């Protein structure tokens, strides 16, 4: 286990905490993309990312969603320092996780270790 693994775990869990808090906000509840099937899919991806499951895929998909949100906001003429800037920050964080992978502190790795050393 290296410092980088700890750092990636902090980022993944931090993202989970932020996403959970954000999802509870009234503005988020009012948004169509956070309700129904798209909301469930996003929630599942955030959980998979936090668990470190499916390698780089959850981070890559969430990074694409965040980048799309940023571009959509900028295109619609929103104040860039508000929602688009935050979405851009999110896409940078998620993009870096997609590039570097989840690290070794993942649920899958813990399970493999448990199977090896019962």
């Amino acid at each position, binding site marked *: 286990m290296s410092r980088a693994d700890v*750092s990636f775990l*902090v980022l993944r869990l931090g993202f989970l905490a*932020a996403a959970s808090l954000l999802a509870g906000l009234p503005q988020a509840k009012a948004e169509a993309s956070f309700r129904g099937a798209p909301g469930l899919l996003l929630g599942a991806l955030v959980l998979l990312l936090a668990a470190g499951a499916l390698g780089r895929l959850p981070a890559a998909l969430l990074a694409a969603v965040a980048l799309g949100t940023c571009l959509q906001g900028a295109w619609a003429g929103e104040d860039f320092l508000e929602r688009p800037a*935050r979405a851009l*920050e999110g896409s*940078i*964080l998620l993009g870096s996780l997609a590039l570097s*992978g989840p690290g070794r502190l993942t649920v899958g790795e813990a399970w493999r270790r448990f199977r090896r050393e019962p």
Partner: protein
Amino acid sequence: MAEGRDRGSEVKARAQDLGLLLLRAGSSLSLLLLFAPLKIHDAIAFLHTGAWRFVDFNRKVGLPLPVAVAFLQTVNESLVALLLALGVFGRAPAALLGVSFVAATLASARAHEDVFAPGAYALVFLSLALTGPGGVSLDAALASWRRRGSR
């Protein structure tokens, strides 16, 4: 077989370095380009007018030395962010930014303002303080240049 494993871990390390580069450069350049220009402009205006909303905010949340804190944060979001983007002075710029954004998050919470933006920056910078700038940085380039020079 062993060669293949070596190659695999090399590719993994390279991908990790690129991930750290994106995180480092992306977060610090977003600070530098989106928030620093306004703060620098307001800081210069403060020297002439004596008015700065950031100083008023610092006073409101009860931070000590509100003017000094405002200038320090302006330096952090411009110069220190640039050092982090370049990857010089190891973990120090990331640690400095991390601590300042933890303070910013607490101040925002105290003022009942948005804590997500400063909180996200604090999370990213503290993580970077843990990992260091990675292999694609000016620090790493200087180290390899020195190694080559000493041979």
